[in-house]
């Protein structure tokens, strides 16, 4: 790995991808000859982690510049691939297809937002950051806005946005290993952690970069193979991106028939009635809770005296034990069940219809939310430190610009395919699954049902599956596609390996970003500026270890709201960094006080809005009744709309009120604007 010239690198990675295909073929043959699925899962898990570890060991380094920015010698194409792997997390890999399946057009905000953000990166940030050429994003803030304050605010925002994100990745690793390999969730988390650490710990950015290139190859193959086969089965053409349009037209026809089917209408009505019953219970708290408990007790006693099966009694007793103990708990518990039932009872939306719903107010509200979310995702993409940091690693400004192009190209390979997954899954489910008899459901329904990813309830008791009676966890769309298409298990193993690569590569980049922010920005720049290079690396590596273990222990608690919080990371990063970074390059008049107050106010506004719109109480802090009506009906995931706006406004107003920045700062801005100065 010492030689960075592009030609041999290309050859290495071509060999590598070819041998990966051979490996899949080999496993496929072994499966034919009776290799059990569990062993296929093990082979994928251990081979890929072993591979990443080997690259990590080969690329180990003791040089600061290699450790933080891979020696700034990464060619544009490979930096693009690494950025792609860094960028595409387990949410993109597993969640996006499912989101598109569940919400149709609405889900396109993610496709556009997560790609359109790169326009902002390319035009407004990447070349200038590369020209500046230090190590971290807080480095830039400190150089432009002078002093430790801007740096420390940057560090705080970096950690805030990145930590939640890294926890979600490690959580994803635990999920995949426990599902496909059968490891216990907690064990899976720590196996994944080992895979992450061996790379970033030994070789920092240099090892992470070359591993990410390898991970990109695996994840993109894993993403494209199943849906291409499915596309071939349905339409005869293995290019899903071109064929899903016609499949969606068929889906539209199926929707008309299914939505209006009398049995469907009836099932939806029954779910709505259930929602109403929960609503009633919530209104009559706390009596309803006692009543519920008494009712269960009566049934248990009746069963016991009637010589019923012990199993049924035990099930009811468990139900009674699981009843919430206080009124507050009961309210949130029943509220969740009420929403669930209400959702299943609601009229389903057409896949292709933008901003669905009855009435202009509903449509306009949906549109406003779509546009705000789109804005937050784009600005957040252009402000996430682990992505921006990657553009420090190219050899020149020129290569940085080209590299954004390659990044986006490699990312598009996945994002342009995600809508196809949703379309094909919907087609299969609407045409084959819905309307089939309850006792003849395909195998994948029961196998994913066992771990709670698919749930089916015959609410109208007609023995036939209605669409309203089926509820899917978004992740299952991608993970179950190989089984829906009837492909051999080796393809499922491949998908799992891809999901693992997506989660590990993002976690690597994030951990490194957090550790650099702490070791480089806080320890070296603020606390002990004369620390030796060797000592800096020791500190960085130890912090990496600490942060990683911390993230893994949080993830092993299985925090329920984690996926939600990832959406928040975009708004947080966007409102903290984007205005200060952009104005730092494009507006010389922006002052230090302006930037610091803008970052702080932007962050605070976003946090305030998220907390008050999303939470009604924070029990462990003893805070209650803080919920508020959202402004203009905008949901908490798009809170950044307010934060980014407030950030820009604050920086501009405060800067104009103060004295213009020093000549030195203005010269700094000038220097960042030209790739090579001094030759005028």
């Amino acid at each position, binding site marked *: 790995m010492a030689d960075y010239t592009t030609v041999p690198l290309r050859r290495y990675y071509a060999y590598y991808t070819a041998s990966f295909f051979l490996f899949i073929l080999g496993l496929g043959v072994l499966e034919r000859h009776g290799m059990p699925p569990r062993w296929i899962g093990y082979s994928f898990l251990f081979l890929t982690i072993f591979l990443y570890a080997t690259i990590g060991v080969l690329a180990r380094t003791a040089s600061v510049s290699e450790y933080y920015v891979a020696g700034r010698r990464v060619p544009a194409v490979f930096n693009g691939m690494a950025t792609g792997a860094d960028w595409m997390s387990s949410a993109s890999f597993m969640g996006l297809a499912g989101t598109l399946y569940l919400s149709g057009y609405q889900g*396109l905000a993610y*496709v556009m937002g997560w790609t359109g953000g790169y326009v902002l990166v390319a035009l407004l940030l990447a070349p200038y950051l590369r020209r500046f050429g230090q190590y971290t994003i807080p480095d830039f803030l400190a150089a432009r806005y002078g002093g430790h304050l801007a740096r420390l605010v940057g560090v705080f925002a970096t950690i805030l946005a990145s930590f939640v994100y890294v926890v979600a990745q490690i959580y994803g690793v635990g999920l995949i290993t426990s599902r496909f390999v059968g490891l216990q969730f907690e064990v899976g988390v720590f196996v994944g952690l080992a895979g992450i650490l061996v790379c970033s710990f030994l070789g920092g950015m240099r090892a992470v970069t070359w591993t990410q290139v390898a991970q990109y190859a695996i994840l993109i193959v894993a993403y494209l193979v199943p849906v291409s086969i499915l596309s071939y089965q349905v339409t005869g053409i293995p290019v899903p991106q*071109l064929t899903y349009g016609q499949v*969606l*037209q068929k889906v539209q026809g199926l929707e008309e028939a299914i939505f209006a089917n009398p049995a469907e209408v009836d099932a939806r009505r029954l779910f709505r009635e259930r929602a109403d019953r929960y609503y009633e219970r919530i209104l009559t708290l706390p009596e309803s809770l006692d009543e519920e408990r008494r009712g269960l007790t009566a049934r248990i006693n009746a069963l016991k005296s009637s010589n019923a099966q012990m199993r049924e009694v035990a099930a009811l007793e468990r139900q009674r034990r699981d009843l919430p103990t206080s009124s507050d708990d009961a309210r949130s518990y029943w509220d969740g069940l009420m929403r669930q039932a209400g959702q299943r009872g609601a009229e389903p939306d057409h896949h292709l*219809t933008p901003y669905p719903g009855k009435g202009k107010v509903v449509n306009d509200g949906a549109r406003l939310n779509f546009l705000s979310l789109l804005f937050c995702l784009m600005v957040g993409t252009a402000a996430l430190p682990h992505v921006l940091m990657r553009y420090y690693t190219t050899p020149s400004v020129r290569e940085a*610009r080209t590299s954004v*192009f390659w990044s986006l*190209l490699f990312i598009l390979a996945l994002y342009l395919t995600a809508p196809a997954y949703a379309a094909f899954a919907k087609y299969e489910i609407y045409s084959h699954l819905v309307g089939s008899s309850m006792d003849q459901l395909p195998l994948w329904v029961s196998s994913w049902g066992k771990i709670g990813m698919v749930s089916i309830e015959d609410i109208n008791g007609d023995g036939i599956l209605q669409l309203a009676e089926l509820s899917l966890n978004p992740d299952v769309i991608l993970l179950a596609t190989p089984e829906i298409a009837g492909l051999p298990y080796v393809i499922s193993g491949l998908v799992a390996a891809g999901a693992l690569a997506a989660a590990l590569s993002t976690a690597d980049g994030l951990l490194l970003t957090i550790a650099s922010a702490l070791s480089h920005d806080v320890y070296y720049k603020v606390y002990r500026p004369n620390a030796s290079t060797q000592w800096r690396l020791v500190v960085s590596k130890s912090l990496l270890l600490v942060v990683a273990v911390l993230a893994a222990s949080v993830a092993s608690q299985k925090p329920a709201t984690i996926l939600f919080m990832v959406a928040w990371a975009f708004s947080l990063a966007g409102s903290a960094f984007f205005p200060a970074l952009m104005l730092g390059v494009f507006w010389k008049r922006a002052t230090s006080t302006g930037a610091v107050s803008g970052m702080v106010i932007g962050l605070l506004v976003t946090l305030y809005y998220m907390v008050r719109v999303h939470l009604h109480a924070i029990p462990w802090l003893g805070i209650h009744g803080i919920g508020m009506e959202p402004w203009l009906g905008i949901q908490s995931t798009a809170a950044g709309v307010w934060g980014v706006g407030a950030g820009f406004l604050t920086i501009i107003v405060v800067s104009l009120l103060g004295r213009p920045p020093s000549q030195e700062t203005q010269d700094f801005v000038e220097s960042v604007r*030209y790739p090579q100065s001094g030759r005028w």
Partner: protein
Amino acid sequence: MRHGRKQQDYWRRNLRMTASLLVIWFGVSFVVSYFARDLAEITLFGLPLGFYMGAQGAPVVYLLIVWWYARYMNHLDREYGVDDGDGEK
């Protein structure tokens, strides 16, 4: 370092290109999405125009924007002699 004429000129051309590309970016993302319901009648590759733009059209335009900007600026660098090469520095 005072700004020479040539330097100002380079920066102005950069700003002009950046601004025009951002206008395109804004158009395909926000303006098209805003009118997505009204564009449902027009279809492209079997999909309503609004849906098609969100799923494929806009991302491909983004890629073209980024490609064009890199090309334009890399030429501009050379023209103004501020090219920093392929990293031999």
